[in-house]
């Protein structure tokens, strides 16, 4: 079986998305809390606390500088954790996938539905977070509204990468590896809390070449600053290509794991 075989999907992908949406709605209050509260905590601690000691960064206040990074990080976290811990629990502990593939749905449908749901989680969290940040006057409108559709693409990249890990890890504890070795460094070194240009040049190139969050931060920041430039095309292209590659790869890896 090839790793890049194009999956044969049906409209039933939507049913898996619906299932996850229904669970999400059942625990709505719980799900709203993190994306609502986290930007407040970060803004107070870093933006207004640490920001007191930072004159300005690239000509803007520190709070204004990190606001888009907080949105970008929530896009990453929402889909990454949905498609690692969330999907793993549904796959391994709850046997939800087994139950679904006893119906006309195929395993490809199930995984694609999970990925689209993961991307949707990023979108939902971005939607909750944006008004909170906007209330502090830290983002430009209406440009920033484009973050909402963009968060789906950004979310899909992290969902697909997450699903690749979920497909190959031997047990749930092993998810610590991608979280600590991939997500945490990205959280810190993707131009989130200080400009990429502060890093040695090789690391800058590394971040641009291999860290998806770098591109998400670039685009979200350009939108919150209402300062679009032609380099964003490169960021967008990177994310589109990465989402396609990892979307297909993750479905094939999952098939390898589950179809025996």
């Amino acid at each position: 079986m090839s790793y890049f075989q194009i999956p044969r999907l049906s409209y039933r992908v939507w049913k898996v998305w619906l299932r996850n949406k229904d669970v999400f709605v059942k625990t709505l209050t719980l799900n709203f809390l993190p994306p609502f509260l986290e930007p407040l905590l970060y803004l107070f601690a870093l933006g207004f606390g640490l920001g007191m000691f930072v004159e300005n960064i690239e000509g803007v206040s520190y709070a204004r500088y990190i606001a888009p990074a907080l949105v970008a990080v929530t896009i990453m976290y929402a889909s990454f954790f949905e498609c690692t811990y969330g999907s793993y629990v549904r796959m391994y502990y709850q046997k939800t996938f087994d139950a679904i593939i006893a119906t006309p749905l195929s395993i490809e449908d199930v995984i694609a539905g999970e990925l689209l749901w993961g991307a949707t989680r990023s979108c939902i969290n971005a939607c909750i977070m944006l008004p909170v940040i906007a209330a502090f006057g830290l983002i430009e409108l209406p440009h920033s509204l484009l973050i909402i559709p963009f968060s789906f693409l950004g979310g899909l990249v992290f969902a697909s990468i997450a699903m690749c890990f979920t497909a190959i890890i031997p047990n749930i504890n092993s998810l610590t590896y991608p979280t600590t070795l991939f997500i945490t460094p990205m959280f810190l070194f993707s131009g989130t809390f200080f400009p990429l240009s502060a890093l040695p040049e090789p690391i800058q190139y590394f971040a641009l070449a291999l860290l998806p969050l770098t591109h998400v931060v670039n685009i979200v920041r350009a939108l919150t600053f209402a300062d679009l430039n032609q380099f964003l095309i490169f960021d967008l292209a990177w994310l589109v290509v990465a989402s396609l590659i990892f979307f297909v790869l993750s479905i094939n890896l999952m098939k390898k794991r589950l179809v025996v």
Partner: protein
Amino acid sequence: MDIASVIVAERLQKRFGEFIAVDGVSFTVEEGEVFGFLGPNGAGKTTAMKMIQCVSPKNAGRLLVFDMEVDTHPREIKKLMGVVPQENNLDPDFTVYENLLEYSRYFDISRQDAEKIIDELLDFVQLKEKKDTMTEILSGGMKRRLVLARALINHPQMLILDEPTVGLDPQARHLMWDKLKNLKSQGVTIVLTTHYLEEAAYLCDRLVIMDHGRILVEGKPDELIRKYIGTDIVEAENEPVVIACLEKNDARYEVVGDMVQIYTNDPQKTTDHLLKECTLRKITVRSATLEDVFLKLTGRKLRE
């Protein structure tokens, strides 16, 4: 007679690396019958089930379900089938009712139709008053019945059950048997695996006993018992005098621990004979069961 075969398997094979789980088995399941797969752990029953369910691809041979190839028409086949898996994989995120509603969507059943079907099914499996309960706090028997109801949501023509009554108390087990008999009377073809041989004898029209990936025997429960054991079993103590006496009389017997089991079709005659000729101290007569056939064919050695 014009009876359609619901499942046709020819030299069906499944390998996991070097290990051959199902080793070229052939069988057919006819419409409307209850067909059982029996065998010790690791015999290949569940693997065979998974191939029929189109979730585990076969390595060789031919497998037709509803006259369709499992490799090319999985969605069409699964649409006509209901599955009760070995492990209860109910959705713990939902209530009893929601579990059925979610499942109905996978079969493209409209909300309106689903609500009607679910009401009927909850009645059928006697879970109506539990409809808003989260599945995790249901008892084992209730969970099993809910899985059965879920498998029936698409009005399947065939039901596949992998150890449907495992871990259930006698009341729950009998209730499950009633439901399956009821479904059979409605014309549903039923394929099941079980470790409970009285269950197999009670439910199955026909069955196969598998071991090491192969089918050892196939037939109706009664016929298998008569063919391999006889109508009755006379049990005596395992003592050299008894063995010697049995050898002299050319009896069909088997030594089981400190007991000797003598297979017979005429328990009266056998008992009389034994009591008269051999100096037996203790002797019991009982009907032969499917369990005797099973143990005779698959041996008494522990598996796994």
